[in-house]
């Protein structure tokens, strides 16, 4: 009963929501609103669960001295942002937005820019044109990279055109095929959830 009733609940809700796409009418409009409100409230409670989870994790880290000082720093920064948001508001030109522009943005941009080095070093170690397929991958990536910088044009004026063609034609075809595969796979997964064959989201 710990799993059967939730699965049945899911099936009923799924059928009602699925039917909403095909049947128009007053009942369906109300039902749409009913579920939409439910999802909004679920989102609110989801945020609360997230806040509780973060607080709990950091509490244990501080209590059991698992990188205690970093956890204290993290919690301090959270409280600082909340304090700034409450006292000064979130509009541009406030201390809250200044923290975003002067702390969050540089940290985020630098963390992601670090990946440039690691991607480059990983590519240097693993990109070996051992087969036709890997050679094609290597060639496509080099052409696309060269096409996006001025030196590509200097080397050969047709490189930007080739880069554009790769992005528009074969890359677009590959992406589309993968999107098709993704949609088909997700439909299969949803049908499994629908009929209770997939139960990994439920606890024992």
């Amino acid at each position, binding site marked *: 009963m710990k799993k059967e009733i939730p699965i049945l609940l899911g099936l009923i809700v799924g059928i009602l929501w699925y039917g909403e796409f095909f049947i128009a009418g007053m009942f369906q409009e109300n039902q749409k609103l009913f579920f939409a409100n439910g999802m909004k*409230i*679920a989102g609110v409670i989801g945020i609360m669960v997230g806040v509780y989870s973060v607080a709990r994790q950091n509490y244990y880290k501080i209590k059991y001295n698992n990188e205690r000082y970093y956890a204290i720093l993290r919690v301090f920064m959270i409280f600082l942002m909340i304090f700034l948001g409450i006292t000064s508001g979130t509009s541009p030109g406030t201390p809250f937005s200044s923290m975003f522009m002067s702390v969050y943005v540089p*940290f985020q941009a630098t963390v992601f820019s670090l990946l*440039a080095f690691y991607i480059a070093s990983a590519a240097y170690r693993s990109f070996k044109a051992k087969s036709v397929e890997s050679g094609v991958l290597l060639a*496509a*990536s080099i052409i696309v*990279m060269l096409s996006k910088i001025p030196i590509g044009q200097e080397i050969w004026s047709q490189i930007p055109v080739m880069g554009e063609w790769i992005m528009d*034609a074969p890359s677009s075809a590959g992406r589309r095929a993968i999107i098709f*595969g993704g949609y088909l796979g997700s439909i299969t997964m949803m049908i499994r959830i629908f009929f209770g064959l997939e139960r990994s*989201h439920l606890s024992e």
Partner: protein
Amino acid sequence: MDIKALLDNIFLNDMFVSWIPVLATIMILSFLYRDNPLYKIGENIFIGVALGYGWILSWEYIVDPFFIMPVKDMFVEFHFWDITYILWFLLALTMFFRFSRKNAWVANYYFGFLFGYMAGYYIPIAIQNILRQSTDLMKPINQGSFFESSKWFVIIFGTFAALMYFFFSKPHRGLLGKTARVGIVVMMIFFGAAFGSTVMGRVSLFIDRALLLVEFPMQSIVCTIAVIIYMIIYFKFIKKEKLHDDESFI
């Protein structure tokens, strides 16, 4: 001086706006040498600021309009329809049982509902998207120049060939095998192009960081020297790592 003016003086002055981004950039870049406390401090400041920022915006754009305001309205004038809010609230609250080891199953009611909802909602959307993608494929062959028409051929046959690679109901031999092989090549081009675009995106972010350091030269030099001195002290005197066998041999 009131608190608001004090906060404005701290967070909006030129010192804060110029020194902190430079220091943040150099702290994170110090990871290129090795993992160190400065990087970890920067990482935790980033996580804390990101969480605080996200929560405040969530409060402003989700919690307040979708929860606080309806509850306030409920107290002003109660409608029969408002009972649904209470029901949803109680159902969503069961999510907290996930933290309990004994009673985690109570949350199944909420997750059963949520996943059923998502399944019912997502299946028609996914089918619509597949049909939309298929419709976008069907464009006239005559696109003007040969260059544009070649794109049409590659997109149509490339998509078909790549899809054939995922067709496992027949062994990949003969014509199907050859088509699947073309499909692999098409996907490899896509992966290569995606890789190239990602690298260039990251490099442009790095250039942006470098431009920031150029914009504030004095701050950059001071922060860089301070970070280098700290790292020399840290790795030389505070954290003495045992050398690996191959390093000690060298």
